[in-house]
């Protein structure tokens, strides 16, 4: 087994194990910290697949931004850090059925697919191509995303303000 396969296995294992912990721990704070390892494992997998830019974004945005915000949110909310989540509950059967259905569908796809390999060589770096794409072919998604963020910000600001003091 060469070093690349070993690394891939390691990152994969890290991702799956920490994701299972996120789903099954009753402690909210533990779930938040465990998510850190999930995101990191996914970033590692991106690197192994030659998606260097995506891996950097994964670390910067998901670990550096979203996760830190999430943990701040948990820690700064009174009673939240020690809150115990109900894992399972009344809808366990439904969730299990849906999850199994989904798992079956994905396993079918994963094992039946031949996963043909591209004959093209991997690009050295992907960042410049992605950058060019954003300014040409994918200009519209780039612009729509800005409306998305603006709308979300406007709504979030207002909802937060109403929950606190008025104006």
């Amino acid at each position, binding site marked *: 087994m060469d070093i690349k396969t070993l690394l891939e296995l390691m990152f994969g294992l890290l991702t799956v194990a920490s994701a299972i912990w996120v789903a099954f721990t009753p402690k909210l704070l533990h779930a938040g910290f465990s998510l850190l390892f999930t995101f990191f494992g996914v970033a590692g997998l991106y690197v192994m697949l030659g998606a260097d830019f995506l891996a950097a974004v994964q670390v910067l945005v998901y670990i550096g931004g979203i996760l830190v915000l999430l943990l701040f949110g948990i820690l700064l909310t009174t009673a939240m850090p020690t809150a115990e989540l109900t894992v399972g509950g009344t809808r366990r059967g439904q969730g299990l059925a849906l999850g199994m259905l989904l798992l079956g569908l994905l396993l079918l796809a994963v094992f039946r697919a031949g996963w043909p390999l591209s004959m093209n060589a991997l690009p050295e770096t992907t960042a410049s191509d992605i950058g060019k794409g954003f300014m*040409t072919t994918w200009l*519209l*998604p780039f612009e729509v995303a800005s409306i*998305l963020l*603006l709308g979300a910000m406007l709504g979030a600001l*207002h909802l937060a303000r109403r929950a606190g003091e008025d104006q």
Partner: protein
Amino acid sequence: MDFSGLNVAALLPELLVSGGGLLVMALHAAFRGRQDRQLVWVSLASVVAALAFCLNPLTVEPGYFGSALSDPMAFAGRITVLAALVLLLPGGVAYARSRNLPQAEYLSLSLFAATGMMALASAGDLIVLFLAVEVLSISLYCLAGLMGERESSRQAALTYFLAGSFASGFLLFGMALLSGSAGTLDIAALGTGLARVSGTGTQWVALGGVVLMIAGLLFKVGAVPFHSWVAEVYSGSPTVVTAFMSTAAKAAAFAGFGRVLLALGSVSEAWVPLVGICAGATMILGNFTALVQGNFKRMLAFSSVAHAGYLLLGLMAVGAAGESLEAVIFYLLPYVLANAALFLVAAKVSQAGSGNYKLDDYKGLARRNPWLAGLLALLLLGLAGMPPLAGFMGKFMVFSAAVRAGHTGLAVLGILTSVVAVFTYLRPVVYAWFHEPEESGALNLDGGLAFVVWVAGAGLLLLGLWPRLWLDLCAGIGV
């Protein structure tokens, strides 16, 4: 770099509407909220300008390197969304003003949501499709939460957010598998991409993608088995927001849904049975649940589930060769007009009566305001699909498209459930005309609501009598 494929003009309607939203925000800040009464006119001006530019020949060419299309579906979707805005914005602002809720935020978020809806109706690739779904969803979550003053409204916003995020996950996962196996993000090219991998192992990945993506879309349009959020969200949200969700957002979602299924026509055997079962279940469950509701708003919520079933039936016909989206395109506009007006009427009648949307509020409405009772009957019968109103033509086109595509059983089921729907819609009409009023005194409409009701009623009648007018306009604009 080559910018000849840019053609910004193709996106002028969306740009005008989102620009209107930005202008409202800027003016609100510049005048420190003192001129908020005028902002509704700014918003309406941008909507009317966008309506005018939809007819502009410059928008006929696809723009943004194929990301924004200009076919009949895109045109009809844009017009439908803009029409809903014209009907709903004045009512929404009046509602916000009377309850001291933020008018500027309501207008901006509505215009941003409409931008997302229009982009969804004209999306040429999967990335724009997903982002557009998110723009409209996130704006609507915020609207549901911030327009409410009651606990149920916050609850509705949270439920909508959770259900919607769940659906987005399915949608995105499905898109990833689908585009990965087809080797393209271009919606129109999905069919040829999938045809290339059919027979190889990759088709199983594509199948997973199709199933997940359809599940996400069924969730978004509120079809069985993913309908459980509809009743709570629609009845809990403020009525002006519910009206927007159940009309414009649903029309846009069906436009995007239709475009994806049209592209997947070459692999229709993979999804037609699935969508067929969901369509049948949605028609049955939506109509029968609507029948037993004693609450007008919940009745409209379940009736919109039922209509999602009829629209799914129309989309299934698309899978068969030679069927266009014409039936779905036609179905949407009268549905949106009637529903938008009915929700606003419901708010008015409820406010003057029990305050919680009881059907009993409609008793004796004809004595208190015969015009309103007459138009209420017109709108409800339009939704029920009575000739000569437009709802009849819509249902007729959907059912005949389904029969031509070989789904006769489902078409018969659709006709049978439509009979159930007639009973549902006739109940308020019978209450209004043949019951003694519980409260006396005239129930007068203000100018804005009267405008909405008359426009919707006239639209239903016109579209029902001359359906070709609208269809030819759609077919002529989009080439």
